[in-house]
């Protein structure tokens, strides 16, 4: 009898079947199968070995885990009393800057969609920031910050490579779900950096990814290479048309939706007005839309309830129930009203700080 190891017949066609080790059955299933497209046994035996090797390679790939989580053993606890070392700083414009912070455990644990809380100094407030990138081989996470209020402007002034953050805690919130096959990722303003790890994760999970990112003008554009690397299509929008197409990100989103009516999910991160506009764009089309909420927060662990948001008829805490929610259920007016809660205090703090630094 002929050697039919790994082979089986289905509708007279020969197939190859390789069993999956028990530990990987959650991700890959019980076995991997592939058709040899032949009904002739001799031809099947000839083609078999190459296909078996390919399937085995697929299993090895799965054993190593997702690409950017690879080669990361659980690092030791840091004993540095000074805080968290800033390894690198990069300025994108006069308000936007990047900090790469040393935090090996955090870099290993972080997943797309999660955020951290940063404290600059021992009088500082707890500032929630979405993780813009993480690299567990380097043991760092990256934050992209817009200097708009007192604390972020102070960070812009004080944080240099080689200085320390007083505290850094996270990752907080549920990670994003990466199960869609065709997605449009929209990032505007301070949402451009946070959309990046999601877009990359979708791409690595095998989805078709359309990126839409918006800036005021061409001078403010950053990370274009990175975005292009992980997008099947990238649409850059600028308010004045100095780079990419002219218009807001919603125009870019409409264009992408027109080309890809079979989009399964839209993810929008940015200022509340922009996320609301994206939600209204997709609502008539009935496409699932996810937004990342950025309310005022204190502890970030579900303890204070300051970050509560209205989702449909429910009250949710963005820090532990979110930060991502179904955009079509979010009450954006409520979010925007609650963001103004400390407007007067914020103004006073900024004025005092400006007076003191001039």
């Amino acid at each position: 009898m002929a050697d039919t190891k790994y082979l089986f017949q289905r509708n007279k066609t020969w197939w190859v079947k390789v069993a999956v080790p028990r530990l990987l059955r959650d991700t890959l299933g019980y076995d991997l199968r592939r058709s040899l497209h032949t009904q002739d046994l001799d031809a099947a035996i000839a083609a078999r070995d190459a296909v078996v090797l390919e399937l085995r390679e697929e299993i090895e790939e799965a054993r190593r885990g997702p690409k950017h989580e690879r080669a990361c053993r659980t690092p030791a606890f840091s004993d540095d009393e000074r805080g968290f070392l800033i390894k690198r700083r990069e300025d994108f414009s006069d308000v936007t800057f990047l900090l790469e912070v040393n935090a090996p455990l955090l870099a290993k644990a972080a997943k797309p969609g999660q955020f951290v809380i940063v404290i600059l100094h021992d009088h500082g407030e707890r500032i929630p920031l979405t993780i813009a990138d993480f690299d567990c081989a380097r043991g760092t996470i990256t934050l992209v910050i817009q200097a708009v209020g007192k604390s972020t402007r102070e960070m812009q002034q004080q944080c240099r490579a080689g200085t320390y953050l007083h505290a850094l805690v996270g990752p907080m919130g549920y990670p994003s779900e990466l199960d869609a096959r065709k997605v449009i990722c929209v990032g505007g303003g301070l949402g451009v950096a946070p959309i990046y790890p999601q877009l990359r994760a979708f791409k690595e999970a095998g989805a078709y990814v359309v990126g839409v990112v918006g800036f005021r003008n061409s001078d403010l554009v950053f990370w274009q290479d990175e975005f292009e690397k992980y997008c099947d299509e990238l649409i850059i929008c600028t308010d004045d048309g100095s780079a990419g197409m002219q218009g807001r990100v919603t125009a870019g989103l409409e264009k992408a939706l027109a080309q890809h009516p079979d989009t399964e999910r839209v993810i929008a991160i940015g200022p509340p007005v922009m996320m609301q506009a994206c939600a209204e764009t997709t609502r008539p089309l009935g496409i699932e839309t996810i937004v990342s909420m950025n309310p005022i927060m204190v502890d970030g662990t579900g303890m204070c309830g300051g970050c509560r948001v209205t989702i449909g008829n429910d009250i949710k805490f963005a820090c532990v129930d979110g930060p991502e929610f179904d955009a079509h259920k979010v009450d954006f007016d409520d979010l925007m009203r609650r963001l103004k809660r400390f407007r007067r205090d914020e103004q006073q703090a900024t004025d005092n700080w400006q007076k003191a630094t001039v």
Partner: protein
Amino acid sequence: MPVQDPVERTHNFDEVALGFGLDAALLECERCLMCPNPKCVAACPVAIDIPGFIQKICDKDYRGAYDILTESTLLPAICGRVCPQEDQCEGVCPVGAKYEPVAIGRLERWVGDQAIEAGWRNVPYIEPNGFRIGIVGSGPAGMACAADMAKAGCEVTIFEALHEAGGVLRYGIPEFRLPNDILDAELENLKALGVKIKCNTLVGRLFTIEQMLDELGFDAVFIGTGAGYPSFMGIDGESLNGVLSANELLTRCNLMGATDFPANDTPLGLGKRVAVIGSGNTAMDALRVSLRAGAEEVYCLYRRTRKESPARVEEVEHAEEEGVRFEWLTAPIEILDDGEGNVRALRCQRMELGEPDDSGRRRPVPIEGSEYEFAVDTVVYAIGTNANPIIGQTSKIALNKWGYIETDERLATSMAGVYAGGDIVTGAATVILAMGTGRQAARSMKAYLGIRDSDHIYDTPTERTDTIFGIDPNEKSHVRIRVA
């Protein structure tokens, strides 16, 4: 006990209850009957030898009194301040049948304060046994469990999500009830036992309980994450600016120093007319913090009467002296908007007490047509908390239907080697109960790890003759079996 003047104290965060002086303490301990079968010990969640330490004060052996206290409680200076003694030791004191009961809590506090002042510290010689214990949460339950495990020779690490350790003792209980210096001193005692404290570590998200056991090399884990997920009522207007939880108010003040805004960056955003809903101990803290943070009029709204109020009597009295106005038998039904998204007023309803409910308290029933508007600009909710969801979200540990961790009577969770205690098991309770469960969990963990007799102090007389090769035949021979 002497207290700060009520008018004076509403303008500062200094401690209200000034505590005993030496003479007052000596006088007070003379009142103890030294019952041969003391009820107070049985009523204490951590079973302090109460007559024992009081006797030592009478003997003027203050260090001895401290030694007796620290055999049972890790934090005498804290428990003396925040325990509800009237429901525990002082509640069953026979002296209290006819007169004021012996002020056990104040005596305990006095001894604790003496120890901090004099720098007494009971650090036993600890033989390391190689076991590593991870404690999640640095509140009272975690601190108590950590101390017991460290004394048994384990290498203990406490993980805290916030940037400062202490849990509710830090963010919840205000400075005027528990000064931060006292807490710092007690934490130093813990560190002297070899306990490591890692702040800024959000267990569950940074690494899971499963990872602690599988990858990080912990032999057992204790979860004491607390019940810090504030409840709201679900009435209209709750998302208006000016509505916040007592937890948020207290965290901003105690942890972030918002009363010193703008010197500290965290704003408080408290108005001039503040209504606190609820009448528990947290509500009293929120009321009294609001007064000190500059609110002009502070009201407490409770749907039952003063008699049913769950707060300690002393706290209600202190709040009243300071000028808090109590609106008993009142429940809010709506929060009204000023047109710009801020709170303008509360719509309230008067209540009356009906038949007793399951909890044995009389059920409040609304009075028809009694609705009225009550002008306030800040509404603080202090109506209780739910279980913190993070551990439940990130591990396979079994929870009950309310989201609290399910444990057996030994406080073991559904996962081998993982124990839980404090509010995350019992629901919102007191500091001393949390400490009690922390110690109970420590006992179970020791049994699980096969550590025996670490509570027992051997003082074998040297002139004994009945030893076999120098080994006391009564001493338990112990074999430590490591359970994987």
